[in-house]
């Protein structure tokens, strides 16, 4: 018989499955630095398969019921990517739906969670640019709400993300989209662009643009956002804005998925594509898959 060569479970790790956020935080505090929380545990198990050490205590959050809501403007951290991709919500939150639909494959999305995608600190996390574009706040287990942007910079110590909230509602006219470029279906992304825009009378009133995988960590492109405000919602104008503002001054990421040189080449078409999809769909368009080709 073939023997699976992973150490997960073979080195005496202990499994904990609390039923409330309070139990989970108490457990993590009691168990200390040799413990880690897991949403779907796919990332931790994948790391174990790579031979990386696993925490001695794995605190699985999957039994916590109060963390699975998927409402407009309020999403539980334990919402699975399968649930997110099936969400038919429009408006800006569509960016999240599209990002979920382009993450790994269905068999990963069944158990992978929104909170895990955000809290793992995984640089290629596909949902994080959408959360940035939404201007989302992460709700933490101690009751504090932290902008996702700040969470990426400062981390969350040993607190848990219990959910995310945002205020870009469909009825206020926001439209969102997320576009991912990967070599093949299951590969990590070469680049992800997520946007949220609000248009009135064919003029962009507000714009939020974020990218992932291009740089060391996901980030907003505030200069492009500012230049888009007041611009015509047309392909030519968007192209012009992106050309003028450009992507210079940032160090593109070199890794196994792509060179920085290639990422520098695809940054502009990736962001352009996300903007055009958001504009085409408008606030009321149905979500599309988020891995359109450039």
């Amino acid at each position, binding site marked *: *018989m*073939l*023997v*699976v*060569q*992973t150490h*997960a*479970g*073979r080195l*005496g*790790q*202990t*499994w904990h*499955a609390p039923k409330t956020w309070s139990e989970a935080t108490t457990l993590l505090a009691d168990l200390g630095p040799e413990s880690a929380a897991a949403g*779907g*545990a*796919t990332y931790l*198990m*994948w790391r174990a*398969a*790579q031979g990386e050490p*696993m925490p001695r205590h*794995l605190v*699985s959050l*999957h*039994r916590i019921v109060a963390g699975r809501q998927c409402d407009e403007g309020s999403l539980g951290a334990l919402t699975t990517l*399968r649930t997110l991709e099936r969400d038919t919500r429009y408006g800006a939150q569509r960016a999240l739906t599209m990002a979920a639909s382009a993450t*790994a*494959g*269905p*068999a*990963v999305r*069944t*158990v992978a969670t929104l909170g895990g995608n955000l809290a793992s600190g995984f640089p290629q996390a596909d949902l994080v640019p959408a959360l940035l574009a939404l201007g989302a706040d992460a709700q933490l287990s101690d009751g504090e709400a932290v902008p996702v942007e700040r969470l990426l910079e400062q981390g969350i110590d040993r607190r848990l993300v219990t959910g995310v909230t945002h205020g870009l509602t469909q009825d206020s006219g926001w439209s969102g989209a997320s576009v991912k470029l990967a070599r093949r*279906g*299951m590969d990590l992304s070469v680049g992800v662009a997520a946007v949220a825009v609000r248009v009135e009378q064919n003029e962009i009133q507000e714009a939020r643009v974020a990218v992932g995988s291009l740089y060391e960590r996901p980030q907003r492109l505030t200069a492009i956002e500012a230049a888009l405000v007041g611009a015509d919602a047309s392909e030519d104008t968007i192209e012009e804005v992106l050309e003028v503002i450009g992507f210079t001054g940032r160090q593109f990421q070199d890794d196994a998925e792509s060179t920085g040189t290639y990422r520098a080449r695809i940054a502009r078409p990736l962001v352009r594509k996300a903007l055009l999809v958001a504009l085409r769909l408008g606030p009321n368009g149905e979500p599309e*898959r988020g891995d359109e080709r450039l």
Partner: protein
Amino acid sequence: MSRLLLNGRAVEVTSNAVTPLLDVLREELGDTSPKPGCLEGRCGACTVLLDGEPVLSCLLPLGRALDGQITTVRGSTGEGDPAGHRLNEIKAAFARAGAVQCGICTPGMILATSALVSERDRPTRAEIQEGLVNNLCRCTGYAKILDAVESLAEGKQPGHG
């Protein structure tokens, strides 16, 4: 000792709850239908169903599986069981289409197909490709696998119009 719901039956397991479900199924329970391929979530040969949804058993800790119903391709004879009947239909479609060569990917392909067609009655070719994106095949070139799944949707026999 824990209780795992496997193919409609409760079975006792003693493995550590952090152990990948794939190891538990193959080594402790003797169900070798999920295949150890890449062991890192890229090939899909180890795919099983958790409450009807596809999961990669090489990346799923046993503890996560204990709260649901696990189905492997050995799942059912189909007698009096609609899900098992569907699995048998899919197996037959794969056989008719010549979609099986070395067979390593086949159990995962069949279970991923089962999840796909339970969600969409008539998936398009693109939807089938997306539904099977977790599952790699190094023999068939995929065309006959896609034909087999399409034939299920169309209720026809591949190669016979």
